[in-house]
């Protein structure tokens, strides 16, 4: 149990995006600094949960990370996890034009389930280690993010590039955002009473 330094805040962060863009790999790199080759990683079913402490400028944050399955059929389930999130990461694969084009659908999904001002959004283009197969330019990704007023970064879960940086940027943006409702920074997870009914209602 991490007791020192004291946790300043707990943030709930959600990863969404098409199947096979590398959401789970980005998380695994961030939380465990590990990467599984494609043939050793199983597709996420439903939603997986991870926890990670992040120290930024002498302040410790606890991140509860929810890694959702990308396939459309799981939307009914995954949509219930948006509630109470302070950060949402939309992931696409820079080698898959389709996964980039689908960001529109993911933004729509996001606006349906999250209140606009209460969540920091970040677009991440993953798999930049496969430069030869790139189908979406960095410029296009940045342009898209600007249009939607979100943070933007490219990364590679495989080579590590950009992963830690993405998380740090997201968290510092959440931390400085005045409109975001914070959970008290205790070690225990606080359950938002207003959302305690129905599944996925944990406001961690």
């Amino acid at each position, binding site marked *: 149990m991490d007791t020192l330094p004291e946790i300043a805040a707990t943030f709930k962060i959600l990863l969404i995006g098409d199947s096979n863009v590398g959401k789970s790999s980005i998380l695994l790199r961030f939380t465990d600094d590990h990467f599984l080759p494609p*043939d050793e990683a*199983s597709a996420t079913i*439903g939603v997986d949960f991870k926890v990670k402490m992040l120290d930024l400028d002498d302040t410790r944050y606890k991140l509860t990370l929810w890694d959702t399955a990308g396939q459309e059929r799981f939307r009914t389930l995954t949509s219930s996890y948006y509630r109470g999130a302070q950060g949402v990461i939309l992931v696409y694969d820079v080698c898959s034009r*389709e996964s980039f084009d689908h960001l529109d659908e993911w933004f729509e999904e996001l606006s349906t389930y999250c209140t606009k001002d209460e969540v920091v959004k970040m677009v991440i283009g993953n798999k930049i280690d496969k430069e030869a197969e790139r189908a979406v330019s960095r410029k296009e990704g940045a342009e898209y993010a600007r249009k939607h007023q979100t943070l933007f970064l490219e990364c590679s879960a495989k080579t590590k590039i950009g992963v830690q940086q993405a998380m740090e940027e997201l968290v510092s943006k959440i931390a400085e955002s005045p409109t975001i409702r914070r959970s008290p920074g205790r070690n225990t997870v606080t359950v938002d009473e207003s959302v305690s009914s129905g*599944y996925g209602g944990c*406001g961690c």
Partner: protein
Amino acid sequence: MASSNVRQSSFWKRTPAFTPSRVELVYSSTAHTDTAADLAPKAKQQPAAAPEPAAEPATEPEPRTADLNPLAAAGPPSPPVSSTLEDKFQALLSSPHVDLEQLKKLSWKGIPSRHRRTAWQLLMGYLPLNGSRRAATVARKRKEYADWTAQTFQRGEASLDRQVWHQIRIDVPRTRPDSPVIQHVRVQRSLERALYCWAVRHPASGYVQGINDLLTPFYCVFLGEAEVDSVSDQALAETEADAFWCLTRLLDGIQDNYTHAQPGIQRQVVKLRELVSRINRPLADHLSAEGIEFIQFAFRWINCLLMREVSLANTVRMWDTYLAEPDGFSTFHIYVCAAFLLRWAAELMQLDFQKAILFLQNPPTAAWTTQDIELLLAEAYMYKCLYHDSPSHYAATATRR
């Protein structure tokens, strides 16, 4: 991820033979009260109010079978299969008309690996019970499938439903990474075809992630101990057809797990929660107090029939029993899920939200043997006997409270 549990060159080598165990005790017991009594002797009294006295054994699991059976921890090589069991299967399966009830009764306790292929295909309803009709039926089914795939794939990938094919293509390589059989390139191509054919024939659900997992036990059982490299194209094609039809049968019973909004899973999660709160109220209360929702961990248990939680060899053993149970993959599976959760009750009571979720996401089953699975099945059977078709227990308790 639990799927990294076991890496074996030939998964069934780990499948120990049937050992007469508590399962036999449970199965041969007909009266529900007797079953509970048989299984209850070591149960501790739970101070907290349980719905009924008979439910209490659940809160204190029996000692692990590994303790009772020193062979359990030995791992491979397997002990020799009981010859009487082999003989019984041999006699039963070679009779002109297989007695299905008898086959179910025998299979519940575990099928010897050399009879499993035939037994599963009979239990699935793919093979006719009447031996004289079997060859013709199988030939017809295999031809039907072969014609269908030829027709589907003759115009190349461009003619396929792009979205379905894409999803299958990205999922097959990451199906059962721990199994060299499933990871073999020939089997991979075969899985893609079978999954695609199933998906386009069942547009109400289509291909949903997890269905790929459900297809794999059929390949492992039907291919037997053969090295994939030495399997002829024709034999692999036949395996594919048999697996396709068996998958179809399996999913016929649980298709609403995979249709829009997955109502089957939603319903079963509710059932599981109700069941667990009847069996072990303190655990249910603890989970609830921590803000843990059953859907957060049980969704995957139902979507993939616990295949992400236990090894492929253990899954195969589970399916022997599931195939012998009425609605094994739906109704009985919920009792297995309950037994699975309750097995960790003592640990879970000590864990807060985050630790409990992490624990349930990756339960420590890596070393599980057939004996662990058989104990799990026996416990599930006990819960079924106690709680199935007895909603009045719940209603009465609810009213009293």
